[in-house]
């Protein structure tokens, strides 16, 4: 049995003129114990999808189930079994760390003591601040507390909506380590994020954009499907280099990527050499030119452009 299934889910919101489509007929499945990522920018429909799966919203069309239960018919039962951490890591800023956790525990008719084992790894990191008000915690700490709150009733499926947005790189990394540990305890985790680099940490990911799923696969599977050879290009004047590359006929795409540009050529066999020569003619120096493996972000951009074309 799959932990989560979505079958032809569609959701629109009324707006002046024509309704806005938040989700266009999407389907996917998440297996038991999987760490499943929903990767996409703001406005891709991630939050709407989470709300439908956590029974907070009704889809216009399609069916969905969580833990084998229908999200419409059995919503009460689902509410006992899922853990949910909404976008802004909902906590009460005027309650202390401990009070927040206790509140969410009692909400699910359990207690901190009963399920302490489950949150122990996370909670020990914030326990020394347990008398502090949640509003006075840093972003990373709030995020850990919110995760503890979502876990305290031992859910079988955990939904985390953008848990790492606005959190610095260090806290993000630690957070993903925590998720990995949780997965080891048999909890199915569905997590959304706008950070493409986090996709590689999931078992499988869905790449979403404007309410559509562009692809679903393991991170490796997605990267393998990239299809063309990706070249990393570096030279002395990076910004001019990008402009020069983009003007070349042989270049299919060129995107800056940190300290290098990622380039795809139209004709894979001949072009790289030709391009290199012509760039040298234009006076660029200090060349580094080598093929690399595509990242999820490369794949995402490729899927975006091929869809828009």
């Amino acid at each position, binding site marked *: 049995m799959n932990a989560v299934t979505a079958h032809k889910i569609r959701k629109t919101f009324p707006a002046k003129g024509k309704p806005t489509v938040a989700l266009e007929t999407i389907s996917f499945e998440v297996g038991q114990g999987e760490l499943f990522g929903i990767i996409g920018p703001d406005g891709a429909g991630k939050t709407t999808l989470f709300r439908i799966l*956590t029974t*907070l919203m009704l889809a216009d069309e399609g069916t969905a189930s969580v833990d084998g239960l229908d999200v419409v018919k059995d919503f009460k039962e689902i509410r006992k079994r899922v853990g*949910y951490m909404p976008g802004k890591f*909902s906590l009460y800023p*005027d309650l202390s760390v401990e009070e927040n956790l206790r*509140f969410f525990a*009692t*909400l*699910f008719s359990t207690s901190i003591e009963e399920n302490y084992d489950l949150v122990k790894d996370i909670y020990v990191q914030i326990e020394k601040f347990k008398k502090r008000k949640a509003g006075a915690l840093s972003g990373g700490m709030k995020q850990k507390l919110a995760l503890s709150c979502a876990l305290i009733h031992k859910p079988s499926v955990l939904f985390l909506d953008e848990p790492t947005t606005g959190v610095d790189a260090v806290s993000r990394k630690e957070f993903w380590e925590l998720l990995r540990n949780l997965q080891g305890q048999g909890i199915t985790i569905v997590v959304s994020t706008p950070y493409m680099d986090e996709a590689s940490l999931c078992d499988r990911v869905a790449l979403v954009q404007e309410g559509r799923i562009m692809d679903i696969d393991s991170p490796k599977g997605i990267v393998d499907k990239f299809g063309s050879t990706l070249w990393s290009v570096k030279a002395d004047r990076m910004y001019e280099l990008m402009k020069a590359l983009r003007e070349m006929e042989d270049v299919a795409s060129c995107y800056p990527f940190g300290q290098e540009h990622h380039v795809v050529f139209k004709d894979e066999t001949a072009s790289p050499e030709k391009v290199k020569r012509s760039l040298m003619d234009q006076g660029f120096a200090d060349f580094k030119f080598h093929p690399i493996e595509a990242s999820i972000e490369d794949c995402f951009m490729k899927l975006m452009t091929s869809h828009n074309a």
Partner: protein
Amino acid sequence: MKQFTYFIKKEFFHVWRDKRTLLILFGMPLMQILVFGFALTNEVKNTKIGVLDNSKDETTRAIIEELESSRYFDIYRSLGSNADLEPAFRSGKIKLAVIFPENFQDQLHHGNKASIQLIGDATDPNIATTLINYATAVIMDYQRNMRGQPVYPYTINTEMRMLYNPQLKGSYNFVPGVMAMVLMLVCAMMTSISIVREKEMGTMEVILVSPIVPIRVVIAKMIPYFILSTVNIASILLLSVYVLDVPIQGNLALLVGLCLLFTVTVLALGLLISSVAGSQQVAMLISLMGLFLPTVMLSGFMFPVENMPIPLQVVSNLVPAKWFYYIVKNVMIKGLGFEHIWKETLILAGMTCFFMAVSLRKFKTRLE
């Protein structure tokens, strides 16, 4: 059950830790009672009164002397006949007229009973009442002193008449009015804001996704404000009795019971607002414009309902505070029993059930 009690506890934490709001909640009734109580009751001293003595005998002269020697009144002498009364009032030369009927002393001595008419200018009802009370007291004093003599079996009645505002709207009426206002603010506005705040913070999402029954969420939200309200009701009543000397004439248990009924009405309204409003500002705006303003303007507390244009009178029937105001005024100020107010109580109870039903029905178990 533990789930529920901790939920209530958590609501108390919210209320308790928000010191500024707490101060407003408890300070407001105090402020309002004191402002309305003292600012609106002007002290009476050397007020000009007119005397129309149609009898001109020893007793009337003695009473007039008593009046004149009190520090409250200055006597304006040029009242020759009933016809002079109206112009004197109109021009504001007098605020009160004391009228002795013809043959006052004869009536008193042969019939053992005589009446003095007191006419007050009730455009300012507080002052008029005070004046009449003082005048009556002076007359009673006189009578008591006479009783000290061996034989004085006579009784003087004072008959009072209020000009321009015969029912004396607005005298002690601010007490029930303030009560309605405070309950509106505490219950309706605070409850709606506290629910909407959870929507804004996103905690409502988590709560909805938990197995807790939505009606319990609502009730848990209401309980702290219900308790706060009882504290406020008690403090308003105590202040009225001990600071403002407004006595509770009727049955205290009945009065408190009715106040609690109104508290529930207002809580239901607050809940209704929270289901419509998406942000705290909207909730506050709806509470102020939709509840607070009608309470002040249409309940009969500031402006007598009878004097309003007919359409407004009709609308005022929809304002729960109007019924509450009527009930409290009658029980607390006039000391009437339940048999006189059961109809109004029934209307209020009906409204409460209606609002409660609608708002519970509207409280969604999902977003959107």
